[in-house]
């Protein structure tokens, strides 16, 4: 191997600094959440304790955290499943020519770039003016889909851009019906990317704030609850909650990555070259 140029070391240092910038603050509140009972929102640490985590489990201290966590979790799953199904169908649709495809494409882009508060405001207005009850599982659910679906579709576009259609042709030549081609050829090949879409669907929903602000009704989701706390809680209990939420997100990401890793390993072990076209 040729020796590294000097720029490599400069850029490496820059990259490390970037990572510190990305992760440093999160790690700091992770440490500060173990602050002793007398400690404040910043260093120095006054002892080490689980005091603030314990506080989280006492209902009356900080509102309905566990209820909001449950709602966010269920909503995340709902959004995840819907995002995967609708994105795959949409991705398949865009491989064919159909009337209105261009309009639909620009709607997807609009959905991606529209300020979140407009979705919140618009959906909230429709629901309130038509007398429907605003609820996280109806209006909130739909509002979040306008954020997760564009990401799911962009991933699907990327996947199908790299998809080798000769696999499908081969299946068709062997007499597979269109449904069989999808079920036994296309879906298994794109499966790892679908895990990615699912991950985006879940985490984007779980962390979404602006689009749920006016659409979730009287029962808060977790990000709304956390934001409410920022205005009236000035103790490290805020950091404890932040740390728990981040740890949960990291766990979810880890699980998804493991699933992808196992799928790829199984695939290699079975000696199938399906998916090679994806690289």
């Amino acid at each position, binding site marked *: 191997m040729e020796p590294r140029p000097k*720029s490599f070391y400069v850029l490496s240092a820059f990259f490390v600094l970037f990572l510190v910038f*990305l992760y440093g603050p999160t790690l700091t509140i992770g440490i500060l959440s173990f602050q002793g009972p007398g400690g404040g929102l910043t260093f120095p640490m006054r002892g080490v304790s689980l005091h603030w985590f314990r506080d989280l489990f006492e209902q009356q201290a900080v509102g309905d955290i566990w209820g909001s966590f449950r709602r966010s979790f269920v909503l995340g799953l709902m959004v995840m499943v819907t995002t995967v199904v609708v994105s795959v169908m949409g991705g398949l649709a865009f491989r064919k020519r159909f009337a209105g495809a261009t309009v639909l494409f620009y709607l*997807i882009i609009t959905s991606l770039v*529209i300020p979140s*508060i407009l*979705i919140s405001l618009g959906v909230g207005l429709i629901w309130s003016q038509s007398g429907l009850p605003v609820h996280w599982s109806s209006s909130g659910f*739909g509002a979040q889909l306008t954020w997760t679906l564009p990401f799911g579709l962009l991933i699907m576009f990327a996947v199908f851009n790299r998809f080798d259609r000769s696999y499908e042709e081969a299946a068709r030549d062997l007499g597979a019906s269109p449904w069989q081609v999808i079920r036994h050829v296309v879906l298994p090949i794109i499966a790892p990317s679908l895990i990615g879409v699912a991950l985006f669907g879940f985490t984007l929903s779980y962390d979404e704030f602006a689009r749920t602000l006016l659409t979730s009704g009287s029962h808060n989701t977790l990000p709304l609850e*956390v934001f409410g706390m920022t205005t009236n809680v000035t103790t490290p209990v805020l950091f404890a909650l932040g740390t728990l939420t981040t740890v949960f*997100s*990291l766990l979810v990401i880890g699980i998804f990555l493991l699933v992808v890793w196992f799928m790829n390993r199984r695939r290699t072990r079975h000696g199938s070259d399906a998916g090679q076209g994806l690289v």
Partner: protein
Amino acid sequence: MALRHHFKTKPFGVSVRNTSVIGWLLASPLSLVLLVFLVAPITMIVVVSFWGATEWSIYPAFQFDNYAFLLTSDVTYRVFLNTLKYAAITWVCTLLIGFTVAYYLAFHIRSLTWQIALFLLCTIPFLTSNIIRMISWIPFLGRNGIANSTLISMGVIDEPLEWLLFSDFSVVLAFVHLYTLFMVVPIFNTMMRIDKSLIEAAADAGATGWQTLWHVIVPLTKPGIMIGTIFVVALVMGDFITVRFMSGSQSANMGRLIQNDIALLQYPSASATAVILLITVLLLIGTLLRFVDIRKEL
């Protein structure tokens, strides 16, 4: 990277009309969601922006009062300019940082496994909560925070800096912290597709490292830069929560105006501001889209 060869053949026995129907059926759930939760809300906002409001209710009308008030108030123009200022500064910072990081990953890391691992390391924060990532700046930037106490102990300053938290500085810092990933990902994606032999060719032809960077890599990376720009501009222009939280409610952008009106139940006025914001964002993004074919670049 991928050899993208498309077989533009039509399967036998399937008429074009038939595929069109199937395509339409496949796209119908997507269309339905976007109609109900994107098109209808936008329409509703446009309609309500002409309505009137009392202190406690709103009533249907067709009047231009909301727009007249907005467009004659110099608060609007100040806030509008402030919104653009945030977008511009954040764009420059995220582009410089994002490009450098992507360039490092794409051209200085030699094994694909390491590239993927480091890339994932850069993207993971995107999947955690924005609000918590904002909160996590408090212990750094506060009056008695890490930054101030470090600077004081180093003897750089005598008094704590007041402008670290709750200022334009902290707002932009948070934006850069939250959104640089949106530059890294598309730029890295485009860079990974650059044929490495082009860079060798540039070197063989006597180009210095900088010349290769400026005359070969940057032009070939433009689509990625455009996509990153679209994300960052859209996110910063439409933000309200970062500005509210990181400025301690001392600065405003268009999103904050909308949110204030909402809090006061002045929905028609909020809608009018929303319409103006939407038009601005769509014009900006529409202009950017002229320079890049998103579907082709993914």
